[in-house]
């Protein structure tokens, strides 16, 4: 006769929130390029710019949104798995999460239509 033994819960903590570095955009066009480079030199910053066209800038921002959304989706899936398989021990992470009503993890076992 075999007895089922429940596996020890994995119960991994979510990684801490990473705060991104603040970057400064320089907008340079035909009319202000000399002024921009002069300002860079004055501020002792290498007079070089890594540039994008306005079209590519738009794509960069859209890519950022896609990446951000994907992070949210992965988090939600991880939290749903935790809630489903480890419902009792998930209270701690639930309390620490600050998503709005729509984004905070839902106690699926108690939420019924």
């Amino acid at each position, binding site marked *: 006769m075999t007895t089922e033994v429940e596996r020890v819960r994995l119960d991994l903590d*979510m*990684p801490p*929130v*990473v*705060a*991104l*570095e*603040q*970057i*400064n*955009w*320089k*907008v*340079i*066009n*035909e*009319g*202000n390029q000399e002024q921009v480079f002069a300002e860079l030199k004055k501020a002792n910053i290498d007079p070089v710019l890594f540039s994008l*066209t*306005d*079209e590519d*800038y*738009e794509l960069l*921002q*859209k890519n*950022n*949104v*896609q990446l*951000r*959304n994907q*992070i*949210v*989706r992965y*988090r*939600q*899936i991880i939290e*749903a798995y935790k*809630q*489903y398989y480890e419902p009792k021990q998930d209270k701690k992470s639930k309390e*620490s*999460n*600050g*998503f*709005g*009503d*729509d*984004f905070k993890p*839902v106690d*699926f*076992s108690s*939420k*019924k*239509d």
Partner: protein
Amino acid sequence: MGIAVLGAMGGLMYVKHLQSENEILTLNNAKLEGAVAEQQKVIEQQLKDIAEIRDINKQLQSQNEKLTADLQVANEKFNKVNASGERRDIGNLAVSKPRSIEIIEGRREKQRARCFEIAQGSPLTEEEINATKKSEINAECPNIANPNYVPY
């Protein structure tokens, strides 16, 4: 006389046999009832699990719709059409007002960084939760940053 005794013994053995059969049947019946109850529990648990899975999927789908809405915000932001029917072009704006665009981008970059924090699970601030006006919201990701904001 002997035949009567044999007959009685036979009858007794038959009764014993019936009693034994009856006990076996009773035990089997109890086992079956137990098995049915067990199966019933399994079925109930499975139904509960299915309902939970359905709720999880519904929740994820609803949240996904909000994320898609944020992507839509990003798409529309660069192609907004004003009252005169002209398409907003950040390139044109950057040509005519580079400094203004730099200032706006500086502010937006802070908002974008905050959006990434929220995406990772950073708690919303009171200001973010209570924001209902355009001037109060995080314009980069209102759908995850400002749960009480209704676009107008």
